């Protein structure tokens, strides 16, 4: 793939704009709250797009196209099973506690609801996960640019990290959020033409369905038996593992995305943020799954109209991760090629900046301020927040260099999330809806859940990964393994939390008001019009989601 002047010009314009956004925001940053929390002043449309864009990183764009090619239309489960329901649940039921409790982060909510040790455990694991994810994004970006453009790997790492550092240091969370919105539109508008021309080249959707194995063009039909679908999992595993444990664990408890809703101007906007974000999320498979399905159709069938093929890796199998870059190289001429490459760069930088801004808030508030220096001036915490951003990006660069041994980014990230997020939703579910849940219960539940995840991973093996205790249970895909690991970790956390809570002393009711469902006054009707209320909006979205599942059954 060779870039020309027009392509470099588009990339340059993008770099100039993202850094310029940082400079424009800089003058508004006067306190730690501005830098780390955007002073809860961001309009609804921006928080909603940032909410979805924070998840539009490496995993989403390259990973989902790769999964679309590998697993076919079943990949839409990550949206229509694994996202929309959880996003609606977050908006309707959980945001009132996050926003109403005045917590500045998810770990801080855990402190208010439970105790210090539960917050510490969550803050430390979350901080490690965000740095790891950020490093993965950086590594993947540099590797991609090295492979497709033959750019220097080290130079890519340092330039990309430098640009993210520039705009996050200048404008903090607001700058990252603003750039996430720009990146969202760039990714959508930059990749949409690819879908149109590739679909046209493949002869349209009907031709694809005719030429592909039916297992690749049905979302549910072949899920009654794990051996008859490309993901290698039963529909019950999918619904529980992805649709409940991993989905709710990620969308409802991961501070990276929840933070975007917590910076909304008021409670109503905070509740509607994930629900409005669910609208573009619902149609995102058109941009990130469909290209993969088209690619495998072009590769596998004898379509006369095109000569595109998914590249082959060193083992002789398809190199699914390269599906999107090779589609861009194949279909985009100079000019648009620059837009496509910039969209890819944007997706990686968006993912990295999202992780870094979540990391700096959690580290500053929940580790530094909570355990080291409690009563310093606001200027002190502002400076610490900037220092943490600087070192967070340096750590990301470090992790980027050690993240080189996985062939499918998506499978790998899902596995990491299943260790940390899998058990977490059980803690929140019990903590928010069962007032008897205690701090000891929550803490030991999280420990048990994480241990269960590790043990399950050690006893199962998929695509050569896991089985480090004893590979007694083979699973056909890394994705299926991640669902099972997450499921066991959730179950272990859920029952351990209940058992320990029943034998330990709960907090008195007066300390739990505003933090637990049964002790919180329900505030309905702050918005007069029905279409501004979270519940009716959520119900409409759920109905549309169910209809989409039926259409692609």
């Amino acid at each position, binding site marked *: 793939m060779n870039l020309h002047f027009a392509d470099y010009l588009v990339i340059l314009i993008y770099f100039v704009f993202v850094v310029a956004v940082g400079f424009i925001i800089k003058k508004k940053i006067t306190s730690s709250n501005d830098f780390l929390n955007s002073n809860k002043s961001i309009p609804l449309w921006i928080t909603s797009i940032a909410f979805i864009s924070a998840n539009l990183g490496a995993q989403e764009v390259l990973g989902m196209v790769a999964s679309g090619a590998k697993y076919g239309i079943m990949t839409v489960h990550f949206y229509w099973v694994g996202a929309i329901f959880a996003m609606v649940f977050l908006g309707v039921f959980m945001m009132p506690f996050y926003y109403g409790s005045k917590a500045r982060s998810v770990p801080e909510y855990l402190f208010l609801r439970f105790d210090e040790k539960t917050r510490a455990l969550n803050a430390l694991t979350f901080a490690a996960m965000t740095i790891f994810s950020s490093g993965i994004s950086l590594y993947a970006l540099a590797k991609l640019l090295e492979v497709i453009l033959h750019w220097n790997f080290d130079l890519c790492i340092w330039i990309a990290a430098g640009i993210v550092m520039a705009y996050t240091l200048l404008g903090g969370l607001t700058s990252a959020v*603003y750039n996430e919105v720009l990146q969202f539109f760039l990714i959508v508008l930059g990749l949409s033409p690819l879908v149109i021309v590739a679909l046209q080249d493949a002869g349209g959707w009907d031709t694809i369905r005719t030429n592909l194995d039916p297992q690749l063009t049905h979302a549910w039909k072949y899920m009654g038996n794990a051996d008859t679908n490309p993901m290698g999992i039963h529909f019950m595993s999918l619904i529980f593992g992805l649709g409940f444990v991993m989905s709710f664990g990620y969308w409802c408890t991961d501070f990276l995305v929840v933070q975007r809703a917590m910076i909304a101007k008021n409670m109503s906007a905070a509740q509607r943020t994930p629900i409005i974000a669910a609208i573009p999320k619902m149609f995102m498979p058109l941009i990130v799954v469909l290209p993969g399905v088209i690619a495998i159709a072009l590769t596998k069938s004898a379509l006369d109209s095109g000569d595109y093929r998914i590249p082959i890796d060193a083992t002789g199998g398809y190199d699914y991760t390269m599906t999107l870059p090779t589609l861009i190289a194949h279909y985009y001429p100079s*000019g*648009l090629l620059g837009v496509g490459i910039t969209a890819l760069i944007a997706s990686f930088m968006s993912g990295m900046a999202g992780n870094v801004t979540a990391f700096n808030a959690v580290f500053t508030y929940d580790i530094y301020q909570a355990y080291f220096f409690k009563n310093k001036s606001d200027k002190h915490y502002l400076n610490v927040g900037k220092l943490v951003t600087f070192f967070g990006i340096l750590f990301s660069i470090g992790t980027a260099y050690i993240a080189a041994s996985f062939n499918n980014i998506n499978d790998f990230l899902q596995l990491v999330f299943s260790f940390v997020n899998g058990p977490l939703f059980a803690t929140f579910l019990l903590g928010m809806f069962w007032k008897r849940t205690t701090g000891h219960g929550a803490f030991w539940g999280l420990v048990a859940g994480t241990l269960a995840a590790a043990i399950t991973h050690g006893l199962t093996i998929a695509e050569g990964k896991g089985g480090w205790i004893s590979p007694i249970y083979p699973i056909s895909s890394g994705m299926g393994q991640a669902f099972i690991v997450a499921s066991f970790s959730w179950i272990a956390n859920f029952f351990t939390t209940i058992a320990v809570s029943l034998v330990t002393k709960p907090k008195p009711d007066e300390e739990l008001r505003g933090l637990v469902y049964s002790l919180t006054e329900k505030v309905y009707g702050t918005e007069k019009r029905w279409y501004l209320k979270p519940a009716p909006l959520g119900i409409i979205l759920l109905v549309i989601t169910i209809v989409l599942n039926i259409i692609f059954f």
Partner: protein
Amino acid sequence: MSEKLNQLSFIIGIFFILVALVLLIGYATTTPLKHGINLYTGMAMMVFGLVMIKLKA
């Protein structure tokens, strides 16, 4: 102008207009009709950019 630069929709609008100009000028100066996709995408981005600017104008 300073106030407009603080509006995200204005910044996004300017960005997409510039990218659209790159695509449209590139289309106009290369072999005619060879890269029609640049033309269509450039026009779409131009319209989007103008709408984003108009939103807060």
